[in-house]
């Protein structure tokens, strides 16, 4: 090993020490450890929460997990989420663009949308069950409803908040109306559209869990509810963790896609 190699390795370790093994990391790990400790102590040593499983039991349940089964449940839920999300995107995005871009469409559509919006998606469950025959389409409708409004509102907001100098500059270069929308307005509104999509996928996961708990036709929500009814509480917590993980992964996916779509926005 030559001297320069040695120097390089020592520099590497210095970098590692500076960026990875520092007090911040230690504290972050401590945070999780403290949380688990507090959880254990609360469950073990106080009478109040004795029914809640300890972290140890949850960890043990991890090994009893039927991997094939859980992947099927995840896949089912994911399909419903993505189905509702994409239908919401296909309908919500053009609608949001129309409301944001055209004044007539705004006057004509926005009040009606505004009247339906305050009704929370979960309150739609009974009507949905009445209206749709198949359980799959019920669940997909509910996830769609959850995704629809964040997408519409954020698209609309993003378009109405575009810096007015951009369309003016484009106009003075003689851009056509379609080109203006496609090349100027939509890219400028893109960050907020993606924010809306991120919110939408969060609500979609929430809706899928709620709908599956009630519909009891497979999926993660049903899985959690089933384990609740047979009193396998460690599995319930594990299921909650899996739902959280899936939601977080979906949100990260949208972030990554958003970064690819908005390469000019490398600041964030």
């Amino acid at each position, binding site marked *: 090993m030559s001297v320069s190699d040695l120097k390089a390795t020592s520099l590497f370790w210095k970098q590692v020490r500076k960026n990875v093994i520092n007090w911040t990391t230690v504290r972050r790990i401590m945070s999780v450890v403290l949380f688990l400790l507090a959880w254990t102590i609360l469950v073990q040593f106080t009478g109040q929460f004795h029914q809640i499983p300890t972290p140890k039991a949850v960890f043990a349940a991890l090994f009893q997990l039927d991997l094939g089964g859980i992947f099927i449940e995840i896949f089912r839920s994911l399909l419903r989420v993505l189905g509702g999300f994409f239908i919401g995107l296909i309908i919500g995005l053009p609608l949001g663009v129309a409301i944001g871009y055209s004044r007539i469409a705004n*006057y004509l559509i926005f009040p009606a949308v505004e009247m339906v919006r305050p009704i929370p998606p979960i309150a739609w469950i009974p009507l949905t069950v009445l209206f749709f025959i198949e359980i799959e389409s019920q669940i997909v409708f509910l996830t769609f409803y959850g995704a629809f409004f964040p997408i519409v509102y954020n698209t609309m907001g993003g378009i109405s908040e575009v810096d007015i100098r951009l369309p003016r500059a484009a106009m003075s270069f003689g851009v056509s109306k379609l080109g203006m929308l496609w090349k100027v307005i939509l890219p400028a509104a893109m960050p*907020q559209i993606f924010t809306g999509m991120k919110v939408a996928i969060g609500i979609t996961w929430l809706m899928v869990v709620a709908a599956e708990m009630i519909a009891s036709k497979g999926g993660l929500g049903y899985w959690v509810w089933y384990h609740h009814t047979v009193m396998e509480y460690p599995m319930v917590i594990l299921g909650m963790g899996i739902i959280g993980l899936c939601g977080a992964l979906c949100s990260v996916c949208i972030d990554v896609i958003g970064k690819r779509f908005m390469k000019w926005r490398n600041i964030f």
Partner: protein
Amino acid sequence: MNNQTNTMAGDPQNESDFVFDRPSFWATIFNLKTILNIISVLSLFLIWGLLVHFGVYRFVLIPGPIEVLEWGIEWMGSKDFWMDVSLSSLRVLGGFTSACLIAIPIGLMIGWNKIFSDLTFPTLEILRPIPGIAYIPLAILFFPWQEASVAFICFVGAFFPILLNTITGVKLIDRDYFRAARCLGSSPRQIFWHVVIPGALPSISTGAALGMGIAWMASVAGEMISGKWGLGYRIWEAYTLIRYPLIVDGMIVIGILGLGSSTFIRFITLRVIPWRKAITESLDESITK
């Protein structure tokens, strides 16, 4: 119609200094915007009514607007309605208030203090993606008292929007304010009370309005699955007892209450924190989850 006249007459756009510029009284009422808005709202009900009337696809099963109105009037006259509304509101209020009391101090500390942030934020970040509804089984286990378990679900729903908005609120405060305060010799405690809290308040109120909406949604879910009385329970009961128009009435009441409470928070904010206007309105939409 009277309402429309009042709002339109106060429209600042039309209050020009030049008399000959001022549009006539009828023009202020019947301008394009009002007409199209009225058409929009009317067509919503009309399409609903027509779809039900002609029974398109499965719309035969869905109650029509007139039916809903009749049942709604009857329901509003009964004692059940007030019981449902007050109990649901109390649950939401309980969950929301406790979420505020816990999330705002933690959020302020996380935004302000690096060490505290490192110690708590990772855990909260792990818990955050779990939707509030998934806590229902745990909440039933946790609390022997059903009211508390519904309130707990509202609490979980409202907690994270409030927390995240508080953190962002602190992070968005101009660094110069801290420097200025320190130059003028203020102690950390003074900085906390006179810079951090007023600076974060606008964002906190945004988070509170959002959290309120989510708390209402969570309360419906909680009441559907575990509850007695309450609007969510009423909707579910109406479904099982085949009193379908009542479902729609319940949805409308929940919508109005949720919207009303969020609007109330925004209204209070404008009164209590006038400097909120200085913060761009985009904060409302861009920081949500």
